[in-house]
């Protein structure tokens, strides 16, 4: 087993830590969610994904926050392909999101999902064109922009 592929290279870890800080800055723009908890992002232990607790949802969603998981195992070669939302204890909210994102209204939600308690949402960021600048990640595409666009789209 290649330890590198499991843990990610030190460079990738450094880039992902930058992404995490950048996403946290985005989350910090929002007021605390109704549950009173803080909004936080965390890198998974293997750097193959990151999780967000209490990601904001636009007005009209009840509750106005949801936990997310973004797979980053091909980062930064490709954008995340869709994202995962925590559906456990969230059925009503999932129903609301389903009206916005037709993609996950299908079988995925009803079958046993591959990641327990999470449901995948098809979300193509910029048609999957991915302009990533390792030297200046803020200038190109990045995971914060990916999540911010998803937030914007869930508002429409």
């Amino acid at each position, binding site marked *: *087993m290649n330890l590198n*592929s499991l843990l990610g290279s030190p460079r990738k870890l450094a880039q992902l830590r930058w992404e995490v800080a950048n996403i946290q800055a985005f989350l910090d723009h929002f007021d605390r969610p109704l549950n009173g908890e803080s909004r936080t*992002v965390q890198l998974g232990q293997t750097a193959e994904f990151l999780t967000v607790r209490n990601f904001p949802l636009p007005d009209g969603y009840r509750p106005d926050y949801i936990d997310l998981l973004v797979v980053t195992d091909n980062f930064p*070669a*490709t954008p995340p392909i869709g994202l995962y939302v925590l559906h456990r204890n969230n059925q009503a909210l999932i129903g609301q999101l389903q009206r916005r994102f037709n993609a996950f209204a299908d079988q995925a939600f009803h079958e046993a999902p591959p990641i*327990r308690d999470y449901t*995948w949402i*098809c979300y193509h960021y910029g048609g999957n064109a991915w*302009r*990533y600048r390792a030297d200046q990640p803020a200038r190109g595409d990045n995971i914060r922009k990916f999540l911010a666009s998803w937030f914007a789209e869930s508002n429409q």
Partner: protein
Amino acid sequence: MKVKVRIAASVMERLRAYHLAPGKRAEALSYLWAQAYPLPDDPDGGLCVLVPHTAPLMLFAPDCFLRQSGGNVQLDPAVLNGLLVRFAASSFNCLVNVHDHWFSEQATFSGVDDRDDRIFDRYLRERFEPMLRRHPHLGMARPIFNLSVVLGQQGLDARLIDGRRSRDFAPVNSFDVVGDRFERLAVGLGSAPQTLDEVFDRQRDFVPAAQQRLLAALDVALVGCGGLGSILAEALARLGVGGLVLVDDDRLEATNLNRWQGGSPASVGQPKATHLGERLRAMFPRLRLRVVDRSVFAPEAERALSGCDLIVGGLDNDEARYHLNRVALQYSLPWFDAGCAVTGVGAETDFRVRMFAILPGVSACGECTQYILWDRERTLEAFLDEATARSRRAAGYVLDAPAARTPSVYAVNQRAAALLETELLNYFCGWRPTATMISESWRAGTFQRADRENFPETPDPECPICSYYAGVAQTEPLPRPRAMHAATSLAGLLLDAQSTQTPEVHHG
């Protein structure tokens, strides 16, 4: 100990412009950062040093030097210190110092150079490396490689320095410049030119002797030993390529015999790469040959490719092309790929032939070129993590298509192979600008050739493959279809996703 250097032409040009500027009358010193990786299967600890087009290059203004004269130069210690601090924080593992003997045509290291190189190496070993181990916040603790280069107006000399070895100077054996053309520069005083094999007598009027010798010294990886690959391999050997690494994990079937060069009924069931190797060995006894009966995605294949100078692809799938694109960029290896297709039936029948070349750091890669070299969406599907792939399938995004029987014929394979081999020879001989894309349709009667002059597409600075992955060698894992690694990866993912649902949450 074998030492190879592969440097991007754009970096070499900047070095030459700085060190060998017309009218310059003072010696100068510059530094650049590179990635060194071990050459495969070299018991003496052979090494390849990569300088990609993105490598940081430090060209100093005169006030950065403590002393600078016609034959002597010393960097201000404060400047050197600042440089080392930034190098420590980088992910590169090889520090290259370059100086010039602007006054001479050929360059060889002088006694003063020997002394300076040893002093700097002692500093690296006794101070710098221990500092990295003691203070990990300054940068990743790692073995540091120390390469020294001296440029003359025409030639150069280069060596790896390590005072801990019994011989502290290891001369560089090959110094390759990857650009619009492929150049192998003579190092030091060079060696006496070997006599050319009379086999190549009929190509000596148009292939210069230096290029014929270069071909003989080259190691080319041939990925794909099917119908197309079997022709490519033989054609490469007949051009005079001295070393071949054959990569394929497939076995010959009876249905391959309409196009597998040299195949006979006895070939059926044989591993393609091994069988091709046996045939080549009989035809070209002096050929350096290595057979890798493994998938191109296997780590063994990566290791074998990393020891080569160039990749030739005769592939039948886009996943392998997507993978090779990364190999080409991560190891700075030029990659020439041939492909063909028989399409339509009856009056619609067409024979299509295509070749493309990825010149890492020079031309756009397969991911950022305006040409569509592979079906990106469909190809990436194979590289998705297991969970997302299952979700997409469940959501109806992916349809499992039954494997189609691809129509194939020897003549079209020959045409594709011939196209690639002519362009490959041109890449070394430079008769006309190197082709990056050629496509031909027999039915439409079209032949389109994009080259480095009429379509000089450069790497997109926003292409992660051409920037983030350029020249990083084995430090970044290559993309492998999930079938190759799903078990470990998925387990980690599921385990972790659940463990993050525990109450304690840390701020990013």
